[in-house]
């Protein structure tokens, strides 16, 4: 039963991610006074891409062909670990949050290799930029994770959420910093404005799109789908780690129902915040990104420090 539920939750992640992107795109179109596409447009795009013929360059090696599967597989594995509706599922014990960061790094590594595999200028440029951003985003993310782990005394996501739920509403300075830092890292890692613009192609500033420029057909569909799931994973991570209230702790129908409604509402709200911030903030120059990410790192570091200074070792 539990395994079935875990499978269901992963499926919800995988098949719900395009819907989240559709919702974000719809909000964004509305904020720019454009006629929005329906929210299921990403599904249509994916279906269209899956039906299209795959065109591959002559020089492409086996690496180029297997990369989409590795990227998609890594992201689905990550999605199965992150609690969406209910905590303490058997899959949550498979991997902790550090392994989760590792899975993302694995996907990125192969994507960067595939970008360089063909030998076009755009692929190499995108790969080098992606790795530059990742080398600064990952320490910040790990710092946020460590802050959380110090508070909950565990790196397991499900257990950490349970600990935070159990303690109730506690104002933790470290969580404020870690949440802000993690959100900034999430923006950088999922390639949203101000770090990368997901809506443009063939622009000199693109990062993620430049790497996957040579992909087409079902390969492109898999990579795009993986990117959508990644966006949702980051959203759920931020929401369920720092605001876990509403998530089901037992597998009764009632709790599950409440859990799904709450996470839906939270994700819709987070999407709204993302869209507002993307409307207010302009895309950054590439050379400003290190500054942005070092600020995120500083925030996460301050989170860890304020945990040690203000919260830890507090004995009445």
């Amino acid at each position: 039963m539990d395994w079935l539920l875990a499978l269901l939750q992963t499926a919800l992640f995988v098949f719900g991610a395009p819907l989240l992107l559709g919702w974000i795109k719809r909000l964004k179109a509305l904020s720019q006074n454009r006629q929005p596409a329906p929210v299921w447009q990403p599904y249509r795009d994916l279906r269209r891409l899956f039906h299209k013929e795959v065109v591959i360059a002559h020089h492409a090696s086996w690496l180029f062909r297997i990369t989409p599967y590795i990227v998609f597989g890594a992201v689905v594995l990550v999605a199965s670990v992150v609690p969406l509706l209910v905590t303490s599922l058997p899959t949550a014990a498979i991997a902790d949050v550090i392994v989760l960061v590792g899975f993302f790094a694995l996907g990125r590594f192969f994507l960067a290799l595939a970008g360089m595999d063909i030998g076009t200028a755009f692929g190499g440029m995108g790969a080098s930029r992606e790795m530059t951003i990742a080398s600064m985003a990952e320490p910040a993310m790990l710092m946020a994770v460590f802050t959380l782990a110090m508070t909950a005394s565990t790196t397991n996501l499900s257990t950490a959420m349970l600990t935070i739920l159990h303690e109730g509403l506690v104002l933790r300075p470290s969580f404020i910093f870690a949440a802000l830092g993690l959100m900034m890292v999430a923006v950088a890692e999922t390639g949203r404005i101000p770090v990368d613009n997901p809506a443009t192609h063939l622009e000199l500033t693109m990062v993620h799109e430049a790497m996957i420029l040579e992909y087409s057909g079902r390969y492109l569909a898999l990579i795009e789908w993986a990117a959508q799931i990644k966006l949702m994973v980051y959203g759920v991570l931020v929401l369920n780690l720092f605001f876990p209230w509403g998530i089901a702790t037992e597998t009764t129908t009632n709790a599950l129902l409440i859990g799904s409604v709450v996470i839906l509402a939270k994700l819709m709200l987070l999407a709204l915040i993302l869209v507002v911030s993307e409307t207010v903030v302009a895309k950054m120059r590439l050379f400003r990104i290190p500054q942005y990410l070092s600020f995120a790192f500083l925030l996460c570091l301050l989170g860890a420090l304020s945990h040690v200074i203000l919260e830890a070792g507090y004995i009445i």
Partner: protein
Amino acid sequence: MLSHLSLYEQAIFVLAALLLYTCFSLLAHTRLLDLIRAFAWQGVLLAATCALVAWVLEQPHLYISAILTLSLKGFLIPFALHRLVIKLKLQHTVEKVSSPTTVLLSGVGLVIFSYYVALPIEQLSTEITRNVIAISLAMVLLGMLLLISRSQAVSQVVGFMAVENGLFFAAVVSTYGMPMVVELGVAFDVLVAMVLFGVFFFQIKDNLDSLDVDQMNRLSEVDE
């Protein structure tokens, strides 16, 4: 455990952490108007923390300190600095800090150092605010770091005021604030210092055509 404290007491910690954050934002801002705005935020947060400490520890005289801090460091001094910067036409200058990341990281190092130094003091105290002593010490040190990492006279003044903020915060969290006479004296000293700095700014500007104090290392006769 943090969850044993009341929400007000937890809010003191949050505000203290935010104060530490404003110190870092002071270090990070290179435009003078942004710097002054961050300084104003620090004053407002400091006043809020002071009022909250007064509420939690039931020390009504701290409310007066909070009001003084809010009016002086939250509004009056930032406003005066803002006007000076506009008058001296410095609003568009971007200060050159030789390596901003190193400054920020050494700031983190200072925070760790002050935590280490304040650890024995914390063990002597029984107040719930004892954990915040390390933060106030870090604020003093970060203000000093701001002083030595900048060459603009205006940002050095902001650094000086930030050091004063840190000292005031240390007094509030460790000993319920200084005696009222001392506090009033310091407040007016800061105000007078502000006026004097204003006069000095114009003097320096007249003599050097710039507020970059690094140029004072050079004797004008030797020049060229």
